[in-house]
């Protein structure tokens, strides 16, 4: 598996099944929802697996800590013959096994990695393993215990790796953390033995080193045990459906109940509800008040779309009479968990209908931004803008924003689930605002269906080869494209006629001769020439054939003459936001521009300049696609 294939496989794992496996990587999560499929940064994991691949390691891998979704286990499985994972949360293990994600020969050990029994089980299954990844207890003492227990299992020539998220979620209350453990390990254990650990990544990091004869065997770290011990915040009892914990001098009530509360869980906004107060009795009282108030607040909010702001205000007034100071009591909770949706909704409603309408609307907007598909909240907030704030412009802006967000999600879903074969589908965020496309070198319309699925209303295509053009026309008819602009021309830097050199594969037709160093398969060798009309895109704008106002996206795939097409489109480019250009990465055509030349041209358009936004090689390593986006005027 080469690096490109590995990256593709990893991304597929990370995005395959959001509901079952989480989505994405740890460094690309929203502040309000931390549910990555792979609990590390993307670049870090790619570098790490690349390191593993380069060293030819592929036997037994051991992972301490399955994580919430088992993503790293599945990632390691891409290279390992088998993976042995240890996880103390039996529910996580059960879910992982039930999801059918275990590979043949994989072993899941349920239990505390510090327990002797677990350590014996792992030693029996994986002594002499190729790789160890410590990704469990994210405390200094816990990581030390895991390291001492499991590092000796790695054979000489294997890799020992330590996952470190301490700087991604810095905890001021833990001066000793995983990053300090690694630092101390390097200074006091590895360097004296001539071994240097390498850090991959930044705030999300994986530190790894190659096991040598000097570092193999029993570990004897020079610092006393107990250094950096963290006392977890255990469950002090339950109240109103919340577990109560004491942490850092304050009391917290958390729902759903958890056996212990970690500060990192708060930083990641993991609890569904988090309440805080100075004392245990205060937080218990607050939990009870919140449990009683929440249904009333939901009811009040539900009255707004029905045009009953007065009744909604009365409900909140009654609530404030029954629970005086509730809003003030909830503010510290919202400050401790500023992205907690339950709190945003509660405090937002209290503020909106309790005399602080602008603040309330802003809080509810934050709740909506976490879930733009919450139609009830959207309608409530829109009505609040008009009926409570008296601001119709704000209501319109809100609905526009919601439409854009829904469109973004639709485009992302379509790109992810239904489209493949073009670099653009990997960047749906660039396509959400596209309303019109102009494709030069459309061939038989391979992308027409995609544009139809994406709901792009205005479609214009250029294709000079008569047979391909006829197929393009048929395709547009078949797919029901409304009023496509179909032009049987080629595009270039000047108008006129040119000889188009054609191969057996008609999509490889080019104005340029094959480069003498090109290595082409037989069906791509140029066989015949046809005289075809050539227009500049600007001339088509001038005569009204192309409406530049309707073209947001320009695709150019003309087998080596892409730069000429762009040179003849300066006027058009002033209106385009996105340009996708096929590029040659190896000599294919004589005189074809380098990708850097195309990038330079687009960058030097002055006020209409474009910056490279994405680049991907294709299945054919000699070719790729580059996506450029307009720079100016965005902010």
């Amino acid at each position, binding site marked *: 598996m080469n690096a490109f294939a590995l990256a593709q496989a990893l991304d597929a794992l990370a995005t395959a099944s959001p509901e079952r496996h989480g989505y994405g990587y740890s460094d690309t999560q929203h502040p309000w929802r931390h549910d990555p499929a792979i609990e590390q940064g993307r670049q870090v994991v790619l570098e790490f697996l690349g390191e593993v691949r380069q060293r030819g390691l592929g036997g037994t891998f051991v992972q301490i800590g399955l994580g919430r979704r088992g993503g790293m286990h599945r990632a390691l499985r891409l290279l390992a013959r088998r993976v042995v994972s240890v996880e103390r949360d039996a529910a996580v293990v059960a879910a992982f096994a039930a999801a059918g994600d275990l590979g043949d020969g994989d072993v899941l050990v349920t239990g505390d990695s510090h327990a002797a029994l677990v350590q014996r089980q792992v030693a029996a299954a994986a002594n002499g393993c190729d790789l160890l990844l410590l990704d469990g207890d994210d405390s200094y003492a816990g990581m030390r215990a895991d390291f001492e227990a499991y590092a000796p299992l790695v054979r000489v020539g294997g890799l020992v790796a330590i996952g470190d998220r301490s700087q991604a979620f*810095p905890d001021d209350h833990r001066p000793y953390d995983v*990053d300090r453990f*690694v630092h101390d390990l390097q200074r006091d254990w590895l360097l004296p033995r001539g071994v240097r650990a390498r850090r991959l990544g930044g705030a*999300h990091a994986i530190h790894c080193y190659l096991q040598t004869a000097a570092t193999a065997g029993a570990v004897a770290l020079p610092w006393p045990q107990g250094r950096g011990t963290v006392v977890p915040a255990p469950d002090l009892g339950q109240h109103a459906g919340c577990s109560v914990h004491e942490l850092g001098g304050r009391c917290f009530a958390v729902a759903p109940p958890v056996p212990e509360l970690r500060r990192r869980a708060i930083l990641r906004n993991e609890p569904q509800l988090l309440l805080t107060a100075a004392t245990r009795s205060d937080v218990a009282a607050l939990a009870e008040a919140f449990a009683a108030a929440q249904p009333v607040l939901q009811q009040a909010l539900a009255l707004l779309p029905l045009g009953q702001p007065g009744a909604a205000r009365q409900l909140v007034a009654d609530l404030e009479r029954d629970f005086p100071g509730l809003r003030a009591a909830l503010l510290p909770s919202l*400050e401790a968990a*500023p992205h907690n949706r339950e709190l945003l909704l509660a405090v937002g409603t209290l503020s909106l209908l309790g005399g*602080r309408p602008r603040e309330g609307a802003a809080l509810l907007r934050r709740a909506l931004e976490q879930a733009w598909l919450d139609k009830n909240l959207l309608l409530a907030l829109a009505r609040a803008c008009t009926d409570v704030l008296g601001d119709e412009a704000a209501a319109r802006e809100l609905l526009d924003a919601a439409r854009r967000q829904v469109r973004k999600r639709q485009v992302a879903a379509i790109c992810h689930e239904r489209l493949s074969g073009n670099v653009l589908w990997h960047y749906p965020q660039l396509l959400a605002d596209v309303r019109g496309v102009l494709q030069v070198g459309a061939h038989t319309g391979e992308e027409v269906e995609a544009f139809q699925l994406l709901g792009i209303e205005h479609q214009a295509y250029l294709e000079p080869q008569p047979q391909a053009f006829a197929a393009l026309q048929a395709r547009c008819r078949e797919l029901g494209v409304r009023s496509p602009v179909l032009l049987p021309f080629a595009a270039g830097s000047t108008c006129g006629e040119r000889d188009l050199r054609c191969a057996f594969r008609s999509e490889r037709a080019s104005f340029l001769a094959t480069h003498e160093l090109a290595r082409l398969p037989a069906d791509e060798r140029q066989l015949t020439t046809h005289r075809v009309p050539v227009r500049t895109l600007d001339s088509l704008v001038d005569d009204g054939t192309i409406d530049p106002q309707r073209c947001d996206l320009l695709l150019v795939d003309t087998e080596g003459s892409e730069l000429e097409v762009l040179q003849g489109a300066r006027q058009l480019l002033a209106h385009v936001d996105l340009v996708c250009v096929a590029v040659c990465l190896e000599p294919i055509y004589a005189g074809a521009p380098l990708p850097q030349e195309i990038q330079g041209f687009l960058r030097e358009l002055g006020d209409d300049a474009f910056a490279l936004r994405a680049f991907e090689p294709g299945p054919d390593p000699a070719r790729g696609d580059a996506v450029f986006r307009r720079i100016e005027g*965005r902010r």
Partner: protein
Amino acid sequence: MTRQPLFLCQNGRRGDVVLSRAVFAAAARSGRFDLVLGCCRDDAPLLADLAGPHSRIAAGAFANTPHGAPLDLRHLNDDGRPALAIWLGGNEAWPSYQWADTVRSFDRALARLGIDCALGDAAAATVPMLDFAGEVALPALRRQTIYLDNARTLHEPSHFVFDFERLCDVLPDHDFVCTAPVPEPQPALLDGSGLSPLQRSRLSDRCQLLVGTTFDPFVLTLTEANRSKPKAMCGHDARTTPVPWDYPGNPLELLATMDDLIDFLLANVAVEARR
């Protein structure tokens, strides 16, 4: 002259609020605006010195968070004047944190609001520092001190762990004032974690060298007194990390390792000793 009413705010993190002071101050100095500056509750002291006859502070009920303001601060615009959330430059998803870009973004935003009061290229020409006015109580420094900003905010590319023992060993004649608690207190490590942002900023003026990790909160050291002072941010790849808030003659170095930091300190302490 009629001043244009304008509401300005910064919805980002505290470091962004500090940088936005430059825009707020430039707008106030231009004499063209009647300003309301919105901010989170605990950021109000950062803007207090900008209050004046044509500039007032509107602080919200909520504290700032590691991810920025918990709600859009434009909700504090209670008299319906044009409102603008400051963007710290550039056209990408993340700000460029450069002054010229910030001015350009501000002017563009004003134009979108239909306000013809651009700060212009003249304002963009000189990169301002972010000094705070007013008196603050500062701890006394007993000897040559290095400002060690070991507090950090999330900055994905950067990762650094200070070896405090080594720092104290290589510079036995210096104190280090640290802005976050250190794992093992030592006599030369002064605890500055309880100081306010204003106090840290002022204290940095008195320090010989400035060392930080992430730009937020190191941005507090961007004062006139520190403009040419030796300074470094640790945990960055200088090949790929742009220098934030860059200016001509900026001595800021981006250091990747503890060895780099030791070299930086020894070289600059030697220079200072020769002065």
